[in-house]
């Protein structure tokens, strides 16, 4: 490894260093605030390295740098991967801030809590950059295993059950993923995405043993493996239990960062390695999108626990995101060809801000009323008007009603689908938004029913307030002046679509 290789990995390396530092600081300092402070402020280092890389790459012709180990290219640094690194770090920062109100429940393990979040973030930062199957697998495990531990942190029956389910299903999904990778390797002779793409281009399908069927089976298994991480139906069974049982900040983290990283790697794998098969998988992704939206929204209607409701909502949103991925066939039209991917990236940011705001408000409200049942949220509109307003705005954004981030995100995704001649998919998506309005609006109404009561104080630390404010402002800003983020998202996917 040369110095320049270390530089390419510097955001991840500094993140690992920060995690180790946090564990050490936890041993030394008695005041636990110091540990949290260190973890949050320390994030500035990976951010600084990422910014430096972004600027450096900007000046280069290929706008991409690779890390090579021996003959293999395992790791690419480009605007696409850096975009996701910023997103993951931002989510980690907000989750750490809001955790201040939550860590009291597991005071003994605060240091471990922070360190595990940071370690999981390392995996999620590696994933968007990976260009080789084995690296993908290792990064995915690095992202997942700390999350399994974190979901057990409450140490009650539900939390333990959540962790157990999470662990078993993560293992199953990893097995599927590995099996798929093995098949792809067997039929192309390489684990490198770029080489796989070449082999698929070179070999006429007829010359492969058994035709292309085993290769496609491998592709399907890889989709299934990623599908678990993205909470995509029909791989969503673990989602409600894990979301309900885990500590709420971890649920928020899981629902945003983990999904974003999984989408990043999915995009890279499919556009880079299986681009030659694009028309084959585009329709498959469209079907998965409809399935996921419909299952998520229909199941959410019956939920009485707010975290379970948002769990099913996250399944539905994985479906909306899939619309953008399926819009790959846009390549046949004229005009911009990478709208779908730009839409996915923007939607992930919009969805991230929205879901974090929703979960953060729920943390504060649930702390106050000691319940996560939707019916117990009655009257919150009066008791805690600001919190209720933020939750209401984020739910409106999840429906996709303007002037919020969720609306612009959906417009952008649907626009890409229309260009890709998938108008039926847009109709399905829009009708799903209608279904979703039913259960989201119900929550809003519950908060504002009941008799007018006095304001009550809600225990809510300054750090958590900051996190809530940032994400809430994000929803509105992205909804009213989305131009800048849209442009960045669009430029970030240039390297994927162009390459």
């Amino acid at each position, binding site marked *: 490894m040369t110095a320049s290789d270390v530089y390419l990995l510097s955001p991840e390396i500094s993140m690992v260093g920060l995690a180790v530092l946090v564990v050490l600081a936890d041993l030394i300092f008695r005041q636990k605030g110091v540990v949290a402070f260190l973890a949050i402020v320390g994030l500035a280092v990976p951010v600084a390295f990422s910014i430096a890389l972004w600027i450096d790459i900007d000046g280069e012709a290929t706008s991409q740098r690779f890390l090579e180990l021996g003959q293999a290219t395992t790791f690419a640094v480009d605007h696409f991967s850096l975009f996701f690194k910023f997103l993951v770090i931002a989510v980690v920062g907000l989750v750490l801030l809001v955790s201040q109100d939550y860590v009291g429940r597991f005071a003994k393990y605060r240091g471990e809590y922070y360190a595990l979040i940071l370690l999981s973030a390392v995996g999620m930062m590696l994933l968007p950059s990976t260009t080789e199957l084995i690296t993908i697998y290792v990064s995915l495990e690095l992202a997942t295993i700390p999350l399994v531990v974190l979901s057990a942190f409450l140490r009650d029956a539900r939390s333990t059950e959540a962790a157990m389910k999470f662990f078993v299903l993560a293992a199953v999904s990893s097995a599927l993923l590995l099996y798929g990778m093995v098949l792809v390797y067997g039929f192309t002779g390489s684990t490198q995405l770029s080489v796989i793409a070449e082999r698929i281009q070179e070999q006429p399908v007829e010359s492969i043993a058994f035709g292309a069927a085993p290769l496609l089976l491998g592709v399907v298994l890889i989709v299934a493996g990623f599908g678990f991480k993205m909470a995509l139906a029909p791989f969503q069974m673990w989602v409600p239990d894990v979301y309900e049982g885990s500590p709420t900040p971890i649920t928020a983290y899981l629902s945003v960062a983990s999904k974003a990283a999984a989408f990043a790697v999915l995009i890279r794998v499919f556009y880079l390695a299986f681009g030659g098969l694009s028309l084959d998988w585009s329709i498959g992704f469209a079907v998965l999108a409809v399935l996921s939206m419909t299952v998520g929204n229909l199941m959410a209607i019956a939920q009485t626990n707010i975290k379970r409701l948002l769990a099913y909502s996250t399944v539905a949103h994985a479906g909306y995101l899939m619309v953008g991925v399926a819009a790959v066939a846009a390549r046949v039209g004229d*005009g911009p060809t990478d709208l779908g991917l*730009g839409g996915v990236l923007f939607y992930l940011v919009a969805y991230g801000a929205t879901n974090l705001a929703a979960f953060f408000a729920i943390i504060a409200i649930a702390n106050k009323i000691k319940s996560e049942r939707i019916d117990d949220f009655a009257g919150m509109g009066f008791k805690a008007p600001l919190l209720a307003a933020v939750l209401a705005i984020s739910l*409106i954004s999840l429906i996709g*009603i*303007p*002037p919020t981030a969720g*609306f*612009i995100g959906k*417009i*952008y995704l*649907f*626009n890409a689908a*229309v*260009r890709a*001649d998938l*108008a039926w998919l*847009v*109709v399905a998506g*829009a*009708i799903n*938004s*209608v279904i979703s*309005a*039913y259960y989201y*609006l119900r929550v*809003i*109404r519950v908060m*504002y*029913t009941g008799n*007018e009561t006095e304001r009550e104080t809600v225990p809510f630390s300054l750090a958590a307030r900051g996190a809530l404010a940032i994400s809430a402002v994000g929803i509105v800003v992205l909804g009213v*002046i*989305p*131009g800048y983020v*849209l*442009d960045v998202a*669009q430029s970030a996917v240039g390297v994927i679509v162009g390459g």
Partner: protein
Amino acid sequence: MFVGLLTTLVFLPAAAALIIALFLKEKRQVRVFAGIVAVAELVLSIVAFASYDTAEGGVQLVDRISDWIPALNAQYFLGLDGLNAPMVLLTGLLGACAIFVSWRVEHRVKEYFMWLLLLWTAVMGVFVALDFLLFFIFWEIELIPMYMLISMWGTGRPTYSAMKFVAFTFLGSAFMLVAILALYFATGTFDMIRITQELGFDTPYSRLIMPAAVTFFFFFAAFAVKLPIWPVHTWLPDAHTDAPTAVSVMLAGVLLKMGGYGILRVCLSIFPDVARDYGTPLAILAAFSILYGAVVTMRQTDLKRLVAYSSVSHMGFVLLGVTSVSAVGGGFATVGITGASVQMFTHGTITGLLFVLVGLVYEKVHTRHIPDITGLAVRVPFVAVSFVIAGLASLGLPGLSGFVAEIMIFLGAFKANPWPVAFAAFGVVLAAGYILWTLQRILFGPPSDRQEGLTDASWMERLPIVTLIIAIVVVGVYPAVITDVLDTALPNLINFRMP
């Protein structure tokens, strides 16, 4: 200039809502402040309408930021032309009335006025937005205030009715979204004026991803729900019956016009050929809607439901007027389309007035069950006289505005589709039936003992009533007030693309 008249007109109520949220506490303060804003907004809308230069025509008072969302080529584009100028006046008029009839709301006054003002902003925005994305944004924003107003200040089954309203409208707009994106894909712009000028001329219909007729009917689905046309009208009686008075006034007076305005602005201007080709089926639909609405109205015993169903019948005339497009080139076709637009204005004022009066009666006698109300003419002469005027206007008495609109519609539509129009004309007879019968039952029976000691309308309550009566009489006697402005738009409205 950027912060022009129209921007102020649209955002003044929203700004007022924000001020109420942040600074005002006392019920009285909120009411007085909302009243002042209502008067200011009314004056602004009159100024906007009056300053429209009919000699010059075209789009005037433009407020535009052309790079609002560059990635989507979406603009912030407000403008006034012959089509929307009367709607702006109507919205100003009825919005102000809605604020003043809410003077007696005692339950959660602050939030109530906030939502009402936000609703006003959204509807005003729908009428003056000339960019499809912006139009759609306002169209969708309107859902949230309506949902909150009906579900929280309504009576009867408010949650059910509010959700039904949202579900129907949202489902309609799902189809509209696909159609908007199809137009965007074909033309590369959201600019309504440019699309109207280019589609079919510079840009052939064949560039749409769906056949022009499908796109037309996707739009029509959204507008028909709002208008409403049988069979998608069922949300209207429920929403009206359960909504508070002011919301009924806004709903019947302005929100339904969004549908008619949409048909004129989009379906007719952009797809005149399709409207012409499908003129007969649409005319049959309109005639059925008129007759069905009228027959069902006959059977109603709830005063509010009665007025609501009469709206279904009367708004059918708007669609009937639109079908005169089939006869363009000869006879009175543009008269029919002008009539449709005048009908929207007059129905807004007349039905708005009827709902104000029904609300007043309900407040006084605490029932809307028609058999329980008798002899109001003796007890509350002012209300009774106003009721008679509104009723006569509604059944189309010459000298009042309803007559002008209906005669124009019949004149224009008859040549295109004589049979449907002949049947639709029976709607007028039925209207005379149900209105006179109702007036006779509630006003002129023997005064009942239960209604002893009723007080007539206070000056505060008379204010909106008198304003609306003046509007009805002025348009009835001198319709050129409205038609002169409309005539500047109509010659350019229908430019057939295909022979």
